[in-house]
C-alpha cells in the first residue's frame, strides 16, 4: 500500500494547529452538484432515533455495573485557600465507605499540566479537595460531608472587572491580565482621525454554563492490567491520552468507550479529574467505580463560556466602515487558555483598518472550557451591534451597510482566496424570509399596547473545514450488510446517521444495511467531536473506506462473475453489469465467510485556500416597553456550510444552536456572590436555560452548494455556526424595537427596564 505522511495546518475553535497524519492511496474526486446522489443530501430520520426516544439508548450515566462503587467529591467552599490538613477518619468510620483520596495520599497523576489532581492551593469554590468511594451514592454523599479539612484562607478575586483593576488582588505573579491575541491591518490611528463618524461602545457578556443534560462523569473497571473506561465524552482518544499521562500505563492497557452521549458543547474534550479518580479507586479497591458530577458540581467545576468585557470603536467614512478597534477581556477563571472574541472582527468583514487585542483575565472561579463557538459568540455580540450602532448614526440600513463589506472573496486575514463564500446569498434569503422591508429605523408598533416591534440581523464567520488525521474502516459482510467502525462519537448531533448515509451512498447499499459503531478506542483514530469538524474530518475518510470496500468487492465480483471489474458497479445492494443484477450476498456468499475490509483516511486540505463557513441570522422581536419583556417572534437562520448531507439532522443542529443562543442573550447568566466567590444559581431553577415556551418560530435555510475544494464530500461543519450570530441579531432587533441599546447579555427585563429608564 502506498502510505504517505502529510503535515497540515488547520483551524480548530479559532486557533491554528499543525497536524501530522498518514494517508493511504489517493483521495477521491469530490461529489459535484451533478453526481446524482441517492442517499446523501436527503433527509433521513436518525438511525438511532427510536432507541433514543424509547429510552433504550444507554448513556454512560445509565451504566450501573455489578458491585460498582460510587464516588463523591469534596469541593472547596472557599474561592482560594491552602489545604493544610485533611482528616477523613470520621468519614472512613461510616459503614460502606471504601476509600478517600486527597492531596496527602493520592498517587501522583498528571492532569492538564499539573502534577496532581488535588491541589495544595484550591483556587475556586468547587475545586477538588478530596474524593470518597462508597457502596452507594447516598453513603458517599453523606460521608463526604464528614471529611474535615483545615483551610488557610487566601485573598481572591471573583469578578472579571474587579480582577482587571490595577489594585486588584494578584492571583499570579504576572498579574491577572495577560495579552492573548493581537491583530492589525491598515492604520487605525490615521483612519479614525480621517473618519467622518466614530462610535464607541462597551459590551458585556455573562458567563454561560453548558448544562449538558448528561453531566460529566465516567465509570472505570480494571480487568487485570486492562482499564476500561466508559465516559460521557466528545473524544474517546482524548480520554485515553489523559489516562495514559495520569496513570503512566500503555495505550494497549486502556480502552475508552462512549456510546450514547448526552451533550458536551465543548466541555467534554478529554479525561476529567472524575475519570482519573474513578480509575485510581477502581484499581485500589478492585471494583468498578462510578464518578458522576451532580448538577451543582457541573455548574461549578465543569467549565463555562467566559464572561467578557469588550470595547469597540468603529468609524465610517461616507457610507462605508472605515476602521474598527476591538479590545476584549475574557474571564478565564482558573483556565489555562482563553478563547478569542476578536476573531470575527478580524476576519468577517472587509474593513480596511482593523486593530484588535484580546486579554485573558484570571479570577478565582472555575475554569472556562470550550463552549460552542468559544469567543465568536461573545465577539459577534459586540461586533455586529457596533455595526448597527454605526449604521444608525450614519442613517444607513444595517444590512445595506454590511453588504458593502461582505462581498470580498479573499480572506482579509490571510489574503488567501475562499474556497466558497456565499454570504451575500445568505443575506438575500434571510432578508426575504424575515420580511426585512418592514424594518423601520425607529422600529414599528407591536401587536399589543406598549409593545414595539424590531428587526435585527448579524453575520456568522467560522471555520469548520475539518482536517486529518481521521480514519475509518468499513466491513462488508458476506450477506451484503456493512459495519462502519470509526473512533469518532455521536454527541447527539446525528453523526451516526450522516456517516451511515455516506457509506450507503458510496457502497451502493440501502441505509438500513449499514450499522455504525462509534466511540471506542479499539477503532482507528478519529478527532474530537468539536470545532464543527466531525463531518468534514471523518466524513471524507468514511467515504474512502466505503470506496475501498466497493473496489475490493468489485474485484472479487469480477472474478466470480467473470466480468471485468470496470464494467461492474454497485447499486442498491446489487452488483450490476450490463443486463445483469446480482445481489451482493449472492456474490460474496460464494466465498466462505469472507469479510471485505475497506480502509479510508482523511487527506489534507488544500494549502493555498481559505476554508470557512458563513451565515446570517435575522430576528423579529417585540418588546414590551413597560415590563421589559422580550418576545422573539421569528428567527431566520441561513448558513453556507457546503454540502448538506442530511437536511433533517442539519436543521436540528441549527434549531439547537438558535435556542442555545437565545438562552445566552435573553436569560442565561451565572450569578456569583463577589464577597464569597460562590455561584448563587448553579442549578436548573436559578440558572435559566430556555424552555420550550421560549422557543420561537425558527426558519432554517441552507445554501447547500458543495464545497468541492474542501474535501471529497464537499461538506463543512455546522455544529457551531448556528449559535454565533443569534445573540447579536436579537440585540439588534431589541435596539431597533425600543430605540435604546442593551449592551449587556443576557438582555433581561431588568436590563431592558434600566435602559429604558435611562433613555434620553
Amino acid at each position, binding site marked *: 500500500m502506498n502510505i504517505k505522511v502529510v503535515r497540515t495546518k488547520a483551524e480548530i475553535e479559532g486557533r491554528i494547529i499543525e497536524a501530522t497524519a498518514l494517508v493511504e492511496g489517493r483521495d477521491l474526486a469530490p461529489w459535484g452538484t451533478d453526481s446524482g446522489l441517492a442517499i446523501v443530501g436527503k433527509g433521513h430520520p436518525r438511525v438511532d432515533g427510536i432507541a433514543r426516544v424509547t429510552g433504550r439508548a444507554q448513556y454512560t450515566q445509565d451504566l450501573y455495573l455489578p458491585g460498582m462503587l460510587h464516588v463523591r467529591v469534596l469541593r472547596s467552599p472557599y474561592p482560594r485557600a491552602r489545604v493544610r490538613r485533611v482528616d477523613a477518619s470520621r468519614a472512613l468510620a461510616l459503614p460502606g465507605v471504601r476509600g478517600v483520596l486527597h492531596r496527602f495520599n493520592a498517587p501522583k497523576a498528571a492532569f492538564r499540566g499539573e502534577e496532581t489532581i488535588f491541589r495544595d492551593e484550591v483556587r475556586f469554590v468547587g475545586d477538588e479537595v478530596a474524593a470518597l468511594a462508597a457502596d452507594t451514592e447516598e453513603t458517599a454523599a453523606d460521608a463526604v460531608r464528614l471529611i474535615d479539612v483545615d483551610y488557610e484562607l487566601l485573598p481572591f478575586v471573583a469578578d472579571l472587572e474587579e480582577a482587571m483593576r490595577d489594585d486588584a488582588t494578584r492571583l499570579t505573579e504576572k498579574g491577572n491580565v495577560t495579552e492573548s491575541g493581537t491583530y492589525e491591518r491598515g492604520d487605525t490611528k490615521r483612519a479614525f482621525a480621517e473618519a467622518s463618524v466614530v462610535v464607541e461602545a462597551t459590551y458585556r457578556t455573562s458567563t454561560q454554563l453548558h448544562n449538558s443534560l448528561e453531566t460529566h462523569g465516567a465509570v472505570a473497571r480494571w480487568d487485570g492490567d486492562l482499564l476500561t473506561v466508559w465516559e460521557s465524552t466528545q473524544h474517546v482518544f482524548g480520554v485515553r491520552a489523559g489516562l495514559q499521562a495520569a496513570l503512566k500505563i500503555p495505550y494497549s492497557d486502556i480502552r475508552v468507550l462512549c456510546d450514547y452521549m448526552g451533550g458536551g458543547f465543548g466541555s467534554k474534550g478529554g479525561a476529567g479529574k472524575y475519570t482519573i479518580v474513578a480509575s485510581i479507586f477502581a484499581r485500589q479497591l478492585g471494583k468498578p467505580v462510578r464518578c458522576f458530577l451532580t448538577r451543582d458540581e457541573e455548574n461549578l467545576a465543569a467549565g463555562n463560556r467566559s464572561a467578557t468585557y469588550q470595547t469597540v470603536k468603529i468609524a465610517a467614512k461616507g457610507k462605508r466602515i472605515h476602521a474598527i478597534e476591538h479590545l476584549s477581556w475574557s474571564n478565564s477563571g482558573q483556565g489555562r487558555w482563553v478563547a478569542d472574541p476578536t476573531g470575527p472582527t478580524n476576519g468577517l468583514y472587509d474593513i480596511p483598518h482593523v486593530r484588535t487585542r484580546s486579554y485573558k483575565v484570571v479570577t478565582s472561579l472555575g475554569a472556562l472550557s470550550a463552549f460552542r463557538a468559544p469567543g465568536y459568540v461573545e465577539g459577534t455580540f459586540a461586533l455586529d451591534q457596533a455595526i448597527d450602532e454605526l449604521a444608525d448614526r450614519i442613517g444607513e440600513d444595517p444590512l445595506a451597510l454590511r453588504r458593502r463589506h461582505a462581498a470580498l472573496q479573499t480572506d482579509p486575514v490571510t489574503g488567501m482566496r475562499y474556497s466558497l463564500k456565499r454570504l451575500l446569498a445568505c443575506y438575500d434569503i434571510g432578508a426575504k424570509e424575515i420580511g426585512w422591508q418592514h424594518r423601520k429605523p425607529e422600529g414599528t408598533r407591536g401587536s399589543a399596547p406598549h409593545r414595539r416591534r424590531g428587526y435585527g440581523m448579524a453575520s456568522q464567520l467560522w471555520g469548520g473545514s475539518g482536517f486529518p488525521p481521521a480514519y475509518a474502516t468499513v466491513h462488508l459482510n458476506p450477506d451484503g450488510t456493512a459495519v462502519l467502525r470509526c473512533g469518532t462519537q455521536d454527541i447527539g448531533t446525528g453523526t451516526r446517521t450522516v456517516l451511515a448515509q455516506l457509506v450507503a451512498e458510496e457502497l451502493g447499499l440501502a441505509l438500513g444495511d449499514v450499522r455504525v459503531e462509534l466511540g471506542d478506542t479499539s477503532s482507528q483514530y478519529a478527532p474530537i467531536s468539536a470545532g464543527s469538524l466531525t463531518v468534514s474530518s471523518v466524513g471524507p475518510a468514511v467515504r474512502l473506506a466505503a470506496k475501498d470496500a466497493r473496489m475490493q468487492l468489485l474485484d472479487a465480483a469480477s472474478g466470480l462473475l467473470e466480468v471485468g471489474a470496470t464494467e461492474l458497479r454497485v447499486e442498491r445492494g446489487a452488483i450490476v453489469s450490463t443486463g445483469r443484477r446480482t445481489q451482493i450476498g449472492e456474490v460474496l456468499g460464494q466465498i466462505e465467510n469472507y469479510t471485505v475490509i475497506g480502509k479510508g483516511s482523511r487527506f489534507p486540505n488544500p494549502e493555498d485556500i481559505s476554508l470557512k463557513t458563513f451565515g446570517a441570522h435575522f430576528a423579529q422581536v417585540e418588546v414590551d416597553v413597560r*415590563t421589559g419583556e422580550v418576545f422573539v417572534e421569528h428567527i431566520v437562520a441561513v448558513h453556507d456550510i457546503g454540502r448538506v448531507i442530511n437536511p433533517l439532522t442539519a436543521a436540528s443542529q441549527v434549531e439547537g444552536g438558535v435556542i442555545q443562543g437565545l438562552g445566552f442573550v435573553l436569560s442565561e447568566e451565572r450569578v456569583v456572590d463577589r464577597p464569597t466567590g460562590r455561584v448563587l444559581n448553579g442549578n436548573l431553577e436559578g440558572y435559566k436555560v430556555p424552555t420550550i415556551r421560549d422557543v420561537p418560530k425558527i426558519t432554517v435555510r441552507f445554501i447547500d452548494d458543495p464545497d468541492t475544494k474542501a474535501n471529497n464530500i464537499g461538506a463543512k461543519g455546522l455544529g457551531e455556526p448556528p449559535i454565533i450570530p443569534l445573540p447579536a441579531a436579537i440585540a439588534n432587533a431589541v435596539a431597533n424595537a425600543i430605540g435604546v441599546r442593551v449592551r449587556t447579555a443576557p438582555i433581561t*427585563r431588568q436590563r431592558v427596564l434600566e435602559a429604558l429608564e435611562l433613555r434620553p
Partner: protein
Amino acid sequence: MKPFAYARPRAVTEALKLARGGATVMAGGTDLLGLMKDGIAAPERIVDIRSLEPLRGWARAKGKGLRIGALVSLVDLETSAELARTMPIIGEALRPAATAQLRTMGTVGGNLLQRNRCWYFRDEAYPCWLKGGVRCFAIEGDNRLHAIVGAEECVAVAPSDLAPALIAYDATVSLTGSRGTRTMPLVDLFVTPHGRVRREHAITSDELIIEVRVPENALTRRGAFEKAMERKTWSFALVSVAVSAKLIGGVVRDARIVLGGVAPVPWRARDAEKLLEGQVLDDAACQAAADAALERAEPLKDNGYKVPLARELVRRTLRRLA
C-alpha cells in the same frame, strides 16, 4: 442526608400527636425535600399527611363559598373547568407556576407554606439571619430578586403565586393543632420576619392547614392575575399581581391589590385599594392606583427595576377588571 423517621398517619389526631413530638409535615414534598437535600432542613421525623381524608378534595357548596382542602394538588385546581368558571384567577395564577410535574406533586397547603427562594437562604454555606445567623447576605450581596417594600431584617420575597390570588378573594385558612382549630384571614398566615420572628408563616410546628375557604360573596368579584418571569415559564415571579373588585354600576367597591415577589409577605397595597373605592376603572384611576401601590417602595441596589415592573402589572390587571 440525615436519617429521619417516617410516618404516614391516617387520622388527623394521630398526625397532630406526631407533630407535637417535633415532627415535620410533608405533603407533596416538592419544597421540603429540596430543602433537605440542600441541607437547609434536617427533620428528625417526617409526618406524611397525604392519607388525611379531611384535607382532601375541593368543592363549592351553594351559599357557603369554596372550600379547598390543603392536600388538593395544584394541577387539580388549574385544570378544573368548574373552577375556571367559579374563580378563574386560580388557573391564571397556577398555569405559569413551576412545572407540570411540580404542580402535580405540589399541594395547596405546601404552596402557601413553601419557604422563600433567596439564593443565600437556599445555600447552606450562608448562615444568614433568617437561618439564625447574624446578618442578611442579600442586603450587601446580589439582591436583584429581593424585596422592594415591607422588609425588615430579611429581604427575601414571598414566592407563592397562589397566595396573592387567594388573598385577593378574601380567602381564609383553617388550622388545626393540639389546642384546637383556628381560622384566620389567609393574609395573616404570612408574617414579615423581624426581630425575634425568624420565620415566614404564622403557623406553629404542631398545627396543620386543613383547608382554605373563599367566601361566597367574594366569588362574585372580578379578578385578574399577571406574573413577570425571567423566561416564559418554570420561574418564580419577579413580580406577580392579583387584583379583584366588585363593580357595581361600573364603580369599584372593595378592591384588592395583592403583590407577590415584592415583599416578604404577599403584599396588600391597601392605600391603592382605598384610592379605587367608588372610582370608575378608567386609565387615570388605574394609573393612580398603580402609582400609589408602589409609593412606599424602597428598592435595594439591584432591584430598582421591580418598581416600574410592579407598577405596570398593577395597572394592567386593574385595566382588565373594567
